């Protein structure tokens, strides 16, 4: 792997990891606030940086079965949410390739 500098985002509002303040996503890439995770409210993002994904697994959600992967902070390794690999129901297809970050694990950074 080598040493890789983390990505730094440019935005008026940047969401970072609440543990280590690593940049994760911007307000511009947020698609929806209407999601729920393990720790309550969660956000759907189009693009998230500085995370790596765990193995894919099938998970039963309120909106049906999905194949998802947990996503972890590259710096502190905390699980921050998940990424949708596949949705089986046509109405849920829009989530594929998108990311969920849990609000309780985010903090505003600059």
């Amino acid at each position, binding site marked *: *792997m*080598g*040493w*890789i*500098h*983390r*990505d*730094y985002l440019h935005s008026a509002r940047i969401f970072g990891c609440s543990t280590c*303040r690593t940049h994760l996503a911007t307000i511009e890439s947020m698609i929806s606030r209407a999601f729920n995770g393990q720790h309550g409210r969660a956000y759907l993002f189009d693009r998230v940086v500085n995370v790596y994904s765990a193995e894919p697994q099938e998970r039963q959600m309120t909106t049906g079965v999905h194949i998802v992967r947990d996503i972890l902070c590259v710096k502190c390794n905390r699980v921050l949410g998940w990424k949708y690999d596949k949705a089986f129901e046509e109405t849920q297809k829009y989530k594929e390739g998108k990311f969920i970050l849990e609000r309780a694990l985010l903090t505003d950074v600059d």
Partner: protein
Amino acid sequence: MSLTNGHGLSPPRKRDVTKVTLPGTALYEGSHIDREEFIRLVIQSLRDVGYTESADVLEAESGYRLESRSVSAFRQAIIQGHWDEAEEAMDRLGAADEDDRQSAKYMISQQKYLELLEAQELNSALTVLRTELAPLSMEPERLQLLSSLLMSTSGEEVRRAAHWDGARGLSRQYLLQDLQCFIPSSIMIPPQRFDTLLQQAREYQRNSCLYHNSNAPFSLYTDHACGRDLFPNTTTVILAEHDDEVWDIQWSHDGGHLATASADGTAIVWRLGPVDPSTGRECTPIQVLRNHPCPVNGLSWSPDNETLLTCADQVIKVWKAKTGVCIKELTGHSDTITAVEWLPDGSGFISAGMDCRIVFWDAQGKKRDTWENLSIRITDIAMDRSRLIAVGISREPVTVDPASLLDSQDRNGRSVPSPTEGQVESTLEDYGEVTSVKISSDSRYALVGHGPNEIQLWDLEDSPHLSRTYIGHRAGKNVIRSCFGGAGQHFVASGSENGKVYIWQRETGILIQTLTGHGSGTVNCVAWNPQHPSMFASCSDDKTIRIWEPQPNGLSLEDTSSKGKQRWDMDSDAMG
């Protein structure tokens, strides 16, 4: 007949020399060298050396003269300080252009004026100032300075104030050189012209010598070429003590120790030992510096090689290199520290990081100053005695990657420097980073590692400008630290994401070596030994460090090629 001119010191001699008449104008048949030019350069060299009789004979035999009588008269007039004669001679010699004539006259008058002042002949000096200098002067400030010299009370004071070494110094020689630009070079050959031409030939040969790795002078008798036998292309020892990727390495300034920084959270100090004929280079770990919270990504040896700095995320540790005792742990950054570096005079060190901050510490680890809110997130820094260069990633919301060269004269950090945007280049979004910077030992160049796949050489003289690029290696997302190296820093070396080490000739940018040996992953850093031009080290994701040297055991290239490695022979053939 007296042929004395030029230096004209030898007494006239009676000698029967027959002029040789040759056909054509070339030096000899088929030559592109003009005979007259060549012979006059030889005569000039002979006179410069002091072989005046030989020069006289050559002039008589060839019929070519170094200089006409009017040039000799002009030279004599300047050297002896006969200013009126000098002006007349100057008029005879050329300077077709009226402006040139005026400038020449002004320079002669200025010398005359200074010499009069030096001799404290103030009235005469004043006359020269009024009647000769003032009417010709183009620069009022210069004239003001010259007139202020009238207040000087001694010759010594005049010399100091005018930055001029006096009538008995070299000032008349310098004047002669300056005036020479107004005289066609065919009439008065520039000083030491032959030497200049040979120096150019030498420089050409040095630059054509791909593996040049020695500062020793070489002979004019044959074309010069270094063999590969002095070039470090063989791994003489593999250092395998780290448990994870090795990210940074640095030699101590005396070249006797190597410090290595790893993702395993340790740094190791190695002592370079002798070469053993059967086992290769000896290199033993003498200290393991532990207890870093995370990967160690930066190192810096103090100028006296006593103290070693390591940095890991937001912490700097200060170690006694000999004992391995951590004497300080410093915090002052709010994001990853990417570089630490001692000041060249050892009075302290600086750290820089992704928090857009540069912190200045004294040698005891006390914070002296902080520059905050710089316009870049700093990825590396380099320093010499007058300059600090920081490179990084722009904070601004742009989709281009400005490799800002941030240049400051004030390394005490009293003011925030105004960053000069050295270059703004379109690169792929989120791809392409400036990951390393080094300054050459002559302070003239900066070597900037620039993703993707490029290392840039910046000329820092005047306004910084891109001088050359080195390509061939692979550098995308990884931080790869490249370096200058070899005798006269003749090479540029870098790691690569494909596990190889790349070495270019600095001057031409020609890729001369691609060295394999490291396992898969990235070669993260290459460091040339500052005392041994034929040795460098590389470190890799494969958890090892390799030391590269010429083939040991007196196993010369001939030995290798005779065993059938034909590719070695290519250069030997070219050497002739």
